[in-house]
């Protein structure tokens, strides 16, 4: 027969765990909303920038613009930007990214890795802590980014990455992160950040052509806009991962709360059964004791 006191203690501890997980769920939900707002606010900027860029590249042929960010060469020196979170308790969120990174290293870039030409830039403590213990070379981490995810902070990191590409330190940069789909679903994404392909002129002919005055000239504008749109892409990846993290945590905390509720129900049932059995026992003892006195 289960010990009554042990059961009582167990129920109390599950109850307090449930309180914690449900509080964490609320916190994540609030943070998720805030972070989602940021993505929504980014969208008009990103769309407009893209629109202008596409419009411009339609009227320019590729050869006219020398694009330092589009330098294609056989990839020898690889940088993987691995975006995870700083804290855990968010289900498979981080381990998915880590698994994908390991897969990319072993399948796609094993040669470069064995030559020591592959480095990882970790954004997020979980990924950093994991890869620090492996022989992969690491750049200094950027975990602090998540304390304040603003465009200016992220743009600084993006600039560093872009500079290391133009200076020839790396000739290929890939981002690995969780893309936010909805609170329950994250899409693991692996995309090439650099070299960039020129904005493709999709939907050509649809947009009517406006005769713009360009200042200073089209080439200059394209040259200035490409790094801008790269920074936006980087920012979007970090933001996406940030939002997805809160979504993942909210979902996993919700599940944990559900589990705790189920556990409390089972334990309470067990406890009541044990209590009734004990009472029956005691009555039996009293009755048989009285019987013996006759």
């Amino acid at each position, binding site marked *: 027969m289960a010990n009554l006191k042990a059961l009582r203690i167990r129920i109390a501890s599950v109850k307090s765990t449930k309180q914690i997980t449900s509080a964490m769920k609320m916190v994540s939900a609030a943070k998720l909303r805030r972070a989602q707002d*940021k993505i929504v*606010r*980014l969208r*008009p*900027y*990103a769309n*407009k*920038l893209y629109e*202008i860029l596409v419009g*411009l590249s339609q009227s320019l042929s590729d050869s006219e613009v020398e694009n330092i960010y589009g330098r294609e060469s056989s990839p020898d020196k690889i940088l993987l930007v691995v975006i995870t979170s700083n804290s855990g308790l968010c289900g498979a969120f981080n381990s998915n990214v880590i698994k994908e990174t390991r897969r990319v290293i072993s399948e796609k870039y094993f040669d470069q890795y064995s030559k020591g030409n592959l480095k990882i830039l970790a954004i997020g403590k979980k990924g950093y802590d994991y890869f620090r213990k492996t022989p992969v070379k690491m750049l200094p981490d950027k975990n602090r980014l998540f304390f304040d995810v*603003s*465009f*200016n902070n992220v*743009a600084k990191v993006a600039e560093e990455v872009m500079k290391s590409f133009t200076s020839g330190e790396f000739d290929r940069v890939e981002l690995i992160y969780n893309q936010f789909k909805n609170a329950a679903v994250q899409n693991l994404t692996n995309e090439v950040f650099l070299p960039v392909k020129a904005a493709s002129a999709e939907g050509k002919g649809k947009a009517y052509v*406006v*005769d*713009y*005055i*360009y*200042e*200073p000239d089209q080439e*200059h*504008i394209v040259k*200035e*806009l490409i790094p*801008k749109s790269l920074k*936006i892409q980087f*920012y979007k990846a970090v933001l996406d991962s940030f939002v997805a993290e809160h979504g993942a945590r909210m979902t996993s905390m919700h599940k944990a709360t559900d589990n705790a509720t189920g556990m409390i129900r089972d334990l309470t049932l067990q406890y009541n059964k044990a209590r009734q059995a004990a009472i029956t026992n005691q009555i039996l003892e009293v009755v048989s004791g009285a019987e013996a006195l006759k």
Partner: protein
Amino acid sequence: MRIEIITPDIKVFEGDIKSVRVPGKKGSFQVLKDHAPIISTLENGPVIMVDMDGREIVYEINGGVIEVKANKIILLADSVN
């Protein structure tokens, strides 16, 4: 004419104005009603708008790009102080 000032973090301003003066790459220039369509990159500097009541509104921007088309102005700024 209508203007929108957008940064990656926030929409800073949206409204009707009489004129706007922006820090273009080749020097500051002013956009009035019925300006020809233009796309220009911008330097660091002040964006000075005059609203419908004749009041001046000033934002200090750090680089960006402006598009003017059919009395609709979109100013994408990197950041606004």
